[in-house]
């Protein structure tokens, strides 16, 4: 540590919702391994350069720091760790070793690109239905509340075989897990209890009468392999899908649309050339300056980063959003270029623990743009972009509202 190095409070303050923190450029340039104080008062090291972040995330020796202990296979730990550690988007149970591999394999096969492509029509139908409801009410609305928030939870409900009439209860439960300020501990506990009760009944029903959905398939295939998943594991899977796949995607939909409308020439370019949808989604993921806390790694060995050696025992925070703006990795990193290819951004992490649900998230984001461009070409922000507000109380970054008119 150089003598004049400061210890920075993390996360950093932001001036406006869509702009990156001023510290990033400086740290990437002069202090790639910065010392920070986390909200709980503990110290950690912050990585902001693309190469460092990518290497740390992909290092198979280190997994994320498990702040809350437990492997998430009992109901209690599944829900606490889910609520508390949403900064990493991989579906997170069980976390280590062979169980993790097996679980990842079982669930991963359900989240392949092909399966997600097969879900496209279903996703588009959900999107259309949400827009019918939203546009039926007038010519302006909060896109976050009426579209971005329900869409992913409805998609997950579809995957889990949860009937349409129960979807809004799911949204409520899911929000309760993740929003650390909006609900009281009491409310959260009640919500957790309700979700666990609901899912237990739902799992029992799927055991008795399998249908064409993820849970039924997991039950059948895991028992076919002679190592049936327990109810606890199935429950965790459902919860993990919600936790990993709801709020993150909902917020990303809101931020993506806000970024495209903040400079409306972007939206117009897409209207003219919808074949840019795929690269636009990737660029929105890269450009997102409000990506949340970053991913934590807990070092179990000494590691060299540049000229510095980080000792065993260090907590490292990888700021993917800062890395995604690294000029040495991306030309004109500060520009949102809808046609950027290739775009090896780190929004979903990197390496063996990179987000298992990324094909799902990408497909939802692509479908969102397809449907919005088709249905609401006149879409624009209803307030100046500088007045958009960041959501407080979530570990995943987002906007509190995305007011739009059409």
């Amino acid at each position, binding site marked *: 540590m150089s003598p004049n190095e400061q210890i920075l409070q993390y996360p950093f303050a932001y001036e406006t919702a869509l702009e990156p923190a001023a510290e990033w450029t400086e740290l990437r340039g002069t202090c790639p391994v910065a010392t920070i104080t986390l909200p709980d008062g503990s110290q950690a090291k912050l990585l902001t350069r693309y190469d460092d972040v990518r290497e740390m995330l*992909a290092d198979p020796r280190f997994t994320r720091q498990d702040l809350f202990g437990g492997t998430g296979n009992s109901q209690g730990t599944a829900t606490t760790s889910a609520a508390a550690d949403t900064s990493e988007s991989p579906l997170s149970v069980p976390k280590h070793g062979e169980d993790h591999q097996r679980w990842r394999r079982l669930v991963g*096969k359900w*989240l392949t690109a092909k399966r997600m*492509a097969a879900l496209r029509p279903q996703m588009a139908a959900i999107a259309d239905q949400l827009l019918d409801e939203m546009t039926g009410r007038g010519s302006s609305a909060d896109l976050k509340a009426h579209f971005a928030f329900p869409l992913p939870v409805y998609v997950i409900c579809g995957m889990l075989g949860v009937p349409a009439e129960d979807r809004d209860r799911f949204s409520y439960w899911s929000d309760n897990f993740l929003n650390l300020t909006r609900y009281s501990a009491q409310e959260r506990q009640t919500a957790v209890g309700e979700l666990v009760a609901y899912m237990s009944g739902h799992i029992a029903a799927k055991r008795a009468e399998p249908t064409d959905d993820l849970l039924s398939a997991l039950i059948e295939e895991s028992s076919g392999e002679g190592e049936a998943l327990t109810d606890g594991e199935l429950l965790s899977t459902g919860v993990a899908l919600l936790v990993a796949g709801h709020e993150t995607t909902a917020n990303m939909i809101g931020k993506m649309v806000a970024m495209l409308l903040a400079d409306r020439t972007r939206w117009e370019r897409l209207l003219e050339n919808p074949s840019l949808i795929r690269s636009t989604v990737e660029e929105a993921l890269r450009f997102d300056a409000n990506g949340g806390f970053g991913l934590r790694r807990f070092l179990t060995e000494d590691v060299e980063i540049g000229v510095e050696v980080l000792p065993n025992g260090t907590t490292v925070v990888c700021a993917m959003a800062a890395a995604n703006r690294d000029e040495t990795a991306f030309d004109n990193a500060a520009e949102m270029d809808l046609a950027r290819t290739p775009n090896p951004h780190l929004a979903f992490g990197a*390496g063996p623990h990179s987000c298992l649900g990324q094909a799902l998230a990408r497909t939802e984001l692509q479908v969102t743009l397809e449907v919005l461009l088709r249905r609401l070409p006149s879409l624009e922000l209803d307030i100046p972009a500088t007045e958009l507000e960041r959501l407080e109380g979530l570990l995943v970054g987002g906007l509190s509202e995305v007011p739009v008119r059409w």
Partner: protein
Amino acid sequence: MKITVDEEKCCGAGQCVLIAPEVFDQRDEDGIVVVLEPEPPHDQHALTREAAAVCPASAIQVHDTP
């Protein structure tokens, strides 16, 4: 152009399939990458390179052949 993949590294994220579905697929059993076209035709080269560049696990190698 020839492609090889490292199945051990692949984490089944499916980025390659989303980008170049004619060249890559994922195994039904576990989502691990499968190469459909080990020597992709010319019109697939750009997408193949893009897939290799963005694979989160750096599991795809592109070898240029004369």
